[in-house]
């Protein structure tokens, strides 16, 4: 019934279908790829700067150390996607919690939490994330935490806004009149009603986090033990004029990943937002 409606609306948008298919392919590539394509991304397989499509050993060319770029792409995605998902989860967790409390209680709690939110909003996000990653040894966890900690403000504001709108509705009063506890009101009554816009913003957050991770890796702040697309771009950036393929392939992968996620988010937005449905 209602769930089917949403699914139908989602599938009606060609962009959403394209995005989902693309995302599925990228995930297959990332998670199944390493089991099919057994080449170590750190091993020298050929001479440096082999052009793509010239040698069978390294189809997409080799980098400055003669490593296989395709092997790098296959093995670099997991880190990128994992950090993206983890960071998005963390920013949702912080953002929803603070936004819900601020919106529900109002008054001085709202005032305090919103000032904290503004503090994080005006901090230069990349710089702050760099500081966190530099202070603690870079790893999947610290990078995800760094990205999560700097990117929750939008979610918090959105959640707060939804709570401010929803808490005045009569069914919240009706739930109270039926004897519901405050915790139940916040997490089981109001939050589920606010989930549609939050789901959309969470999906966008994954895309943003992936870009963030790429940026950090590009600046050399990635986990040195883990291969990632961002790091490939960072390593190859000095040679971009001589060997375009070293940075282009991973760049394309990041581009396609973020694009597919954005398309999915947009499709979700249209399916879940009744005001956009008739477009």
């Amino acid at each position: 019934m209602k769930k089917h409606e949403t699914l139908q609306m989602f599938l009606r948008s060609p962009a959403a279908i394209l995005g989902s298919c693309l995302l599925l392919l990228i995930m297959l590539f990332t998670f199944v790829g390493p089991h099919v394509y057994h080449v170590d991304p750190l091993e020298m397989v050929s001479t440096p700067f082999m052009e793509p499509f010239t040698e069978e050993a390294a189809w997409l060319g080799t980098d400055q150390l003669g490593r296989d770029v395709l092997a790098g792409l296959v093995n670099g995605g997991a880190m990128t996607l994992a950090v993206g998902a983890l960071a998005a989860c963390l920013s949702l967790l912080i953002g929803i919690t603070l936004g819900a409390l601020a919106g529900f209680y109002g008054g001085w709690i709202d005032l305090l939490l919103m000032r904290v939110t503004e503090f994080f909003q005006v901090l230069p996000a990349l710089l702050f994330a760099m500081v966190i990653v530099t202070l603690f040894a870079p790893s999947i966890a610290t990078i995800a935490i760094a990205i999560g900690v700097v990117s929750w403000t939008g979610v918090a504001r959105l959640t707060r806004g939804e709570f401010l709108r929803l808490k005045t509705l009569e069914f919240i009063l009706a739930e109270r009149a039926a004897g519901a506890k405050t915790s139940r009101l916040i997490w089981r009554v109001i939050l589920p009603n606010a989930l549609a816009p939050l789901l959309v913003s969470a999906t966008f957050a994954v895309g943003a986090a992936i870009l963030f991770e790429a940026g950090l890796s590009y600046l050399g702040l990635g986990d040195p033990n883990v291969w990632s697309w961002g790091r490939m771009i960072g390593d190859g950036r000095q040679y971009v004029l001589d060997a375009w393929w070293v940075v282009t392939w991973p760049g394309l992968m990041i581009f396609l990943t973020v694009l597919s996620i954005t398309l999915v988010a947009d499709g979700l937005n249209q399916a879940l937002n009744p005001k956009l449905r008739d477009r």
Partner: protein
Amino acid sequence: MATIANQKTALLAVKDVCVEFRTRDGMVDVLRQVNFALHPGEILGLVGESGSGKSMTSLAIMGLVPKPGGRVKSGQVLYRGEDLVQASDTRLRQIRGARIAMVFQEPMTALNPIHTIGRQIVETLLLHSAFTKIEARQRSIDLLREVGISSPEQRVDEYPHQLSGGMRQRAMIAMALACEPDILIADEPTTALDVTVQAQIFDLLRDLQQRKGTAILLITHDMGVIAEMCDRVAVMYAGTIVEQGTTAEVLEAPMHPYTRGLINCLPESRLSDADWLAEIPGVVPALSSLGAECAFKERCEFQTAACARSPDLSVALSSVPLMSSVSGDPRPFARLVACHHPLLASPSSVVSAP
């Protein structure tokens, strides 16, 4: 100070309740010394204009005065002798929904749009009773059948937006009745519904009250509804009760000028000889500007120097013969009025049938 006759038999006694709100103009009293009692199995009507404090009274009973900003300043809400104003949150939650339940005006917004109505009834049941989920589901189907929803086995899995307005209000009533409360507070339960559905909902409420003995506090702005539904009526004006008595007494011989004005506003009313529809001159005063004078003074045709002091709600002695002759109700409910110059029954008004 006005007290209500026979406190001991009252299921719910609201005594001198004052509610104040913080606004830009300072503290404003939205309820001023509200007094009434609700007895087992009766339907008490609370009538008044928008902003007279009817809904705030119901929220004060439930301990749901909006916070921050509002609070019960003084007074007691005695449920079976227990003061709900002083009760803990935990105790209040046990009472809300289980012993005192509410039905709201707009059934579309009063139901959670993302859950099926069955789930919403089940959750209320699970909150207050030891039912298992399967038992609760069966009970919610029974409840839906009881409030006159056809094929409840299917309806139980439908979402509020799939039901008609009348159906939704029935579902809302089913939810309120889930735990067999002693008191049902119905806040304008039919205002959002069309007229034919209104009559059905009232039939349902009256039927439930008769079968289960649930006392109903019916909040409305419609004197017609009062005439049709209520055993007794309390008239609210500017945050306080100005007149109270059995429905027959109040409708036939209103003693407060405001009540008479309200009744004259009814198109079918025969209290007024005029060909046009009567209206009460002036507007409801801003609650923030109320002083010590009678709140109705500015709009009242009978105002005198005495009206500079706000009258207490007190037993209207002059009505005693009328009460015994007209009212068939054996219970000794006091006829109360808050006016320095209560209107006396005039021969013309006694003629009109309720």
